[in-house]
Structure formats: C-alpha cells, structure tokens
C-alpha cells in the first residue's frame, strides 16, 4: 500500500507542477505567427550576426533607409538626403517626430552614437567592416585613433552628415542594415552591454520587444510611438523558433503559423501541389558554390584541371533533378538581378552538353590526368541532406565525364568551417555566400587577396587592381564596367565552381496581405496585414 501511496503522491506532484507554470504570452488573437529557423543570438544590433537576428531586428529598429515589401529602397527614419557631387558627402534629414518606444525623441546624435559604437573596437561588432567606407572608420576599428574622429556628425537634431573616404554608390543600401540603426544612449548607460532584453530594450522601429523565451519564442508588440504607427496593421508578432523544418511545416499545416521561414527539401514537391499560391519561391542574393584550395596541389597552379572540373558539372541537371526547388543554375559569381550590374558568364555556358564535356576531357588530359591516372580528390561539405545530394551528383558527373575518383567527406559545421579556413587538408569544399546589400561589390570583394571570406585563397593582382579602381570610381557606369571586367578576369581563373543561386521559399497563408517577394528576402512585419473578415 505504501508503494501505491508513493506513486499516487508522485502523480499529484507532477500534475501540480505542470499546472503551476506561468504562461508565456500568446499575444492577442490576431497575432502574426512567423517561423524562425534559429534563435537570435542577441538583439543587440551591433553584436548580432545571424540572418535570423537581422529579420527580427528589422521589425524592432529602423535605419535611415529601409526597403519596401517588393525590395525597393525607401526613406525610413530619414525623409530625404543629398549626396555631394563627388559622392563623398551624404546629408540626411530626419523625419519630424521620431520617437523611441519609451517616448523619448530620436535625434541625429543617436545615429552618430550608433555608428560610433559599431566601429568602436571595444564593441567588437561583427559587421564592423560594413561602414569601413566612412572617413576614419578603418583606423578607428583598428584601434589607432579615437571613435570621436569618425566621419559622422549631427549639426542639429534632425540633420546627419556622413563623409566617406571613397565614393561608394552602394553606400546608401548599407544604411538599411540593422548594424547602422541608432542606439538609445540612456539604455546603454543604465544596462551596459545587456540592454537588449525584454523589459529593457528600447527600440525605434514599428515594434517593440514584449518577450523572449530563449530557444522558443520572440514576441513583439506594436510600438505606439513609431512615426508611421498609423500604417502598421498588425498589433503583435510572434517569432517561433523552429530548428526542424518539418516541425515548422507541420505547424503551418495545423494552422498555427502564418508564414514559414523555409520549406523542407523532401516535402517541396508535395507542398507545391498541395498549397499552390501559398508557396512563394523567389531568387535570392545568395550563391552555392564549390571552392578549390588554391594553396595546395592538385589545384595550385593548375588552371586546366580547375576548368575541366567546372565544365564537367551539368548545372541544369543539378538544379532540376537534384536540388529541384526552382534554383537558377550559376554561370557567374554575382547573381543576376543585382542592381546596376550585368554579370559576365563562364566561357563555356553557351556550349552544348556534348561540346562542353569534350572540352572538359581535353583540359583534363592537358592537366596531366587520364583514365589510367585518374585524379583522386576529396569533397568536403557540412552535414546536411541537400549538401550531400549535391555532392553525390557532382561525384558521379565527374566520374562519368572525366573518370575522377572523388571521395565525399561530410563534417560537422564547425569542423568544416575550421578546415576551410585553415586550407590545410581541404581540396574541394562546399560553401555559400549571402550578399549583404544589393550591389556586386558584396560578392566580388570577398575574393580580393587577404579577405577573410576568401576561402579558396584566390590571389590575382589584376583582379585586386580592378577592384580598387572600381572603388575609387564615382561614375556609376565606369564603376560597373570595372566590376564586370574584374568578375570576367576572376571567372577565367576558375578559383570556384559556381553551382546555383539560392531561392527563398516561404509558405504564406492566404489571409496575409502585403507580402512581396524580393531578392534580399526581407519581409518587414509592418508591411503585412490580415485580410478584412467578410471580404472576398
């Protein structure tokens, strides 16, 4: 009997325990429910680095400029701006009546303070290089001169002047990045580095932070002090952290999410049939590529081999039969659709499959390999179902066309990253790059010598020189020609095998209005609304 009593007690205890839990905020009934594939690491906009944190930060904060639902640059905190003729001086005029979520006015000094905090070496901000084009920024972030020397100043509360060291036509685009948002100095004075938490975070965007349950939920509510509050339709937004894409899809199916962050690869065909118009697939500024380790044999100084391997890949077959979610095949490094740029294409892109493979075999022999002496090579990728499928396909294409014996090595993502950065054991590696802003520079700059993101370790003096000439060029047309010339030069060296460009994949419930597909894959909650009930 005693044992039964103990068990009974356990049950009562557990029951009470479960019921006694304080409920997390579920939000009002018409809360927008969005999926988030991983939790934000921080909501401090200078320390955040993930795309997911940036998505949330664009709802919470506001920069000088922003984007419309369809991806056009629009004025945000600044109502207008002028650029000097030499392209070096930007003067921004802030809107009247800008306020923080606690009612304090937003003044130009808060933007100055924000940008200074971004480049301050003490902050150790992730995007510290984003504003390196501003006068003195690079020297400040290197710790050589004080932050007060940054070329940003506020002559009055509603005017902000930014001076650049070099003309950069894409500069205006950077000012939509959360790293350039203003800071609320009293919050930092009071809470130091830990200001970005529920109950503390003061924001200047359409929403404010209501709750954050780590690993589970970020809840936002309307910021009544926002200058354009009247145009914000949705009162509250919940970001549900859902690491597993199938779990996210199930929530959408159960009617618990309005917008998903992605669609699981395996369920894609089924989702397309079942949901039709609710599925939004749109090109993104994001390339999937294979890189060669150019510091070691067999790829060092072996252009013919690199070109042969690139040519042996049937990109159409790859995107249609293997990846299959509407991705465009990549014959360039810079994605099509980028502003003021026409990407040059790989020389063999117009050849027929037969000619292309013939030429690939010729180059392969020229590089010193043959059927009796095949290339044995390792392909490294981070563990992921899609990466594996792509690697298997490429392994088989290389074998069929050239007789290359490729070994596939999947690695836990930090191991893969460490190996790629060290460039000791890697030969061929899978990687990707997401553009930070809508300009070719964000893609081309990473392949300059010494850039930390230059994973193949590509070094070409001509390329670097063309990039520098473009950077100094204030005429947009000349600059564009220089950048295109640089890409053409780089493509002919084959440091990478561009494979395909990513597409964004979202499921959006039919009752959501205002959704726009765009290359940046930015979807501000403030642009969305629920269809009026009873309407048709």
């Amino acid at each position, binding site marked *: 009997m*005693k044992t039964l009593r103990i068990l009974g007690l356990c049950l009562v205890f557990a029951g009470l325990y479960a019921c006694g839990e304080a409920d997390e905020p*579920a939000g009002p009934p018409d809360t927008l429910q969005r999926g988030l594939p991983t939790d934000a690491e921080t909501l401090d906009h200078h320390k955040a680095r993930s795309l997911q944190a940036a998505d949330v930060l664009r709802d919470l904060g506001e920069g000088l400029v922003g984007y419309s639902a369809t991806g056009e640059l629009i004025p945000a905190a600044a109502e207008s701006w002028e650029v000097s003729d030499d392209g070096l001086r930007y003067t921004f005029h802030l809107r009247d009546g800008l306020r923080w979520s606690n009612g304090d006015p937003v003044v130009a000094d808060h933007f100055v303070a924000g940008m200074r905090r971004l480049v301050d070496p003490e902050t150790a901000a992730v995007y510290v290089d984003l504003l390196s084009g501003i006068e003195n920024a690079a020297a400040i972030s290197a710790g050589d001169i004080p932050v007060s020397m940054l070329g940003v100043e506020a002559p009055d509360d509603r005017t902000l002047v930014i001076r650049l060291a070099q003309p950069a036509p894409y500069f205006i685009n950077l000012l939509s990045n959360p790293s350039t948002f203003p800071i609320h100095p009293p919050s930092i004075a009071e809470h130091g*580095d830990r200001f970005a938490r529920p109950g503390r975070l003061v924001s200047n965007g359409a929403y404010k932070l209501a709750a954050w349950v*780590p690993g589970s939920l970020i809840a936002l509510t309307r910021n009544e002090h926002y200058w354009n509050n009247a145009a914000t339709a949705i009162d509250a937004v919940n970001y549900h952290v859902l690491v597993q894409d199938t779990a996210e899809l199930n929530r959408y199916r*159960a009617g618990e999410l309005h917008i998903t962050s992605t669609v699981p690869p395996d369920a894609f065909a089924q989702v397309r049939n079942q949901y039709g118009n609710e599925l939004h697939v749109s090109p993104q500024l994001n390339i999937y590529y294979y890189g060669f380790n150019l510091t070691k044999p067999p790829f060092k100084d072996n252009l013919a081999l690199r070109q042969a391997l690139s040519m042996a890949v049937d990109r159409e077959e790859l995107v249609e039969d293997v990846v299959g979610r509407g991705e465009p095949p990549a014959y360039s490094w810079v994605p099509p659709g980028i502003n003021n740029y026409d990407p040059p294409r790989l020389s063999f892109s117009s050849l027929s499959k037969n000619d292309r493979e013939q030429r690939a075999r010729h180059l392969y022999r020229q590089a010193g390999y043959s059927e009796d002496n095949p290339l044995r090579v390792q392909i490294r990728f981070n563990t992921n179902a899609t990466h594996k499928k792509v690697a298997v396909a490429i392994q088989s294409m290389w074998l069929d066309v050239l007789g290359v014996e490729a070994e596939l090595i999947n690695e836990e993502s930090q191991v893969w990253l460490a190996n790629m950065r060290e460039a000791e054991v890697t030969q061929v590696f899978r990687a990707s790059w997401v553009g930070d802003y809508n300009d070719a520079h964000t893609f081309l700059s990473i392949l300059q010598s010494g850039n930390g993101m230059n994973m193949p370790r590509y070094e070409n003096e001509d390329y670097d020189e063309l990039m520098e000439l473009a950077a100094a060029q204030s005429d947009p047309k000349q600059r564009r020609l220089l950048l295109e010339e640089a890409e053409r030069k780089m493509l002919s060296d084959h440091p990478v095998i561009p494979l395909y460009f990513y597409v964004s994949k979202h499921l959006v419930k039919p009752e959501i209005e205002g959704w726009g597909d765009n290359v940046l894959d930015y979807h501000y909650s403030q642009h969305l609304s629920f269809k009026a009930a009873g309407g048709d």
Partner: protein
Amino acid sequence: MLRYTLLRILGAIPTLLLVIALAFLMVHAAPGGPFSNERVLPEHVEEKIEKKYRLDEPLPKQFIRYVSGLVQGDLGPSYGYRDYDVDELIAETFPRSLRIGALAITLALLLGMAAGTVAALRQGSWLDKFVMGFSMTGLSIPVFVVAPVLVLLFAVKLHWLPAGWTSQTGISRYVLPVITLALPQIAYIARLTRASMIDVLGRDFVRTARAQGLGTATVVRVHALRPAMLPVLSYLGPAVAAVLTGSVVVEEIFGISGMGQLFVRGASNRDYTLVLGIVITYATLIIALNLIVDILYGIIDPRVRYR
C-alpha cells in the same frame, strides 16, 4: 542511513569534478570556437572578443578560473546568447524540461506497471500478446519518428491538440511532448514489470498467500507488487537519463524552450560555458536521482541494509 546518505553525497563530489574536467577538455578540443562563423570576423575583432571572454588565456588557467567561479555559483556568461548568463538560461529552461520529464516518467510508471502486471496475470492471453507487441513497437520506433506522426494525426488532421509548444498556453500543449517522451519508457517498464511479476507470482510466499484464500487482486497488491517493483526501481536511474536525452529531440520538434534544445544549440555553436553548465546540471541530477533510488530501494525492500 543518514551516515550512508552523507557518504554518498561526499562521494559524488569527485565524480562531478571529473565530469566537469572531461567536459571542459572535450568542448575546448572540438574544432572551431564560439565566435567562428561562415562570416569570418576581421582578425582584430576576433582577438578583441576572445580577450573580452578571456579565451586567449592558456587552457589550465581558464579551467581554474571556471572552477573557482563555479564554487561561488557563477556559471559565467553565455557565448551564444550574448545577452544572458548561463545560470539565467538554465533557470529559464530547466524547470520546463523537468516538468515535462517528470510527467513523462510518472505516466510511464503508471501505465507501464499496470500493463506489465495485467500481462503477467493473463500470461499467454491475447491481452498479454497485445501488451508485449505494443511495447516491442514502442521500443523500436525512435522519438523523431513518433513525434511527427503524432503531430500529423492529432494536430494537423484532427486539430485536437497544438502542434507546437508556443502556439497555445495551458495543459493541452503538454500532451504530445509528454506522450512522445513516455512511450518508449512505458514499453520498457511494461516488459520489466511483466517479467518480474511472473517470477514473483511463482514464488512460495505467493503460493502461501493464495492457499490462505486471498483473491488475485489482494495477492498482487499486498504481496507481489512490492518485490516485483524492484527491477523497475533500479531502472528509474537509466530511465531519467533516457528521458533527458529524449527531451533534446522532443524539445526541438515541438519548439519547447527546454534545456535539451539549448544543449544542442550550445554544442553546435561551441558555447563552452552553456554546454558545461548544462552538463553539470545533468550530472548533478543523475547522481542525485541514483541516490534517491538507492534510498527508496531500502524502503521498499527491507532486506537491503545501508552501511
């Protein structure tokens, strides 16, 4: 018994220290670091951050600093959640995981023992075969398959329960995660109880009780249940461990802000302090539960003596 308990607690300290040292070595030995990412930081920024979190110090020094902080109850700041300290994150998530785990274990004990006893009493009947068949299935289907199937059935098709933790508040959101976690445990406990109950029912004292004219219900309740429970009780320690590891998957699938999903995230982000903090919490929990089980053993079986 008090002396025994105290000795056991003292004995747990070196075990815990060993766990901490091993975990510390292992997280630091893994390639990469908390601040390495595909978006490579400029070198001076990386140096600055490492200096700030004192990751530039030699490992032994970092270890000593960590342990001395630990003694004062300081688990350090999280590297992966830069607005939080590790103890805050554990305090936020651990109660939730504990609650779900406790519910799952209780459910497993109740259903598992009831099913096992019934199967033992009706040995060879269709009921026995059903229970054993069910438990075989329950044991062999992994959690990451059971969970989506339950969600598809009860949330997507029938709309009886929420598919995710954060979609609703209240008790209904506990149902699917708890059942998913409990299922393999129900199965295992049912098998254990059945085997042990069959053994006990064949013993002399049970025959004597029956010879005295007691009904089956009384025989089971008064005489057989207690000794038959012993193997189940010793299984409780491993069961708790299994529920804890199972919770990692369940929490990710249902989007529960529990310690399990935090652990996975911490490990893949190389959030050293978070991983260590959770390992210490898990280890303490398992050591404590084993101790409790050993003490309970003596309460249920009077033949056990503590020295």
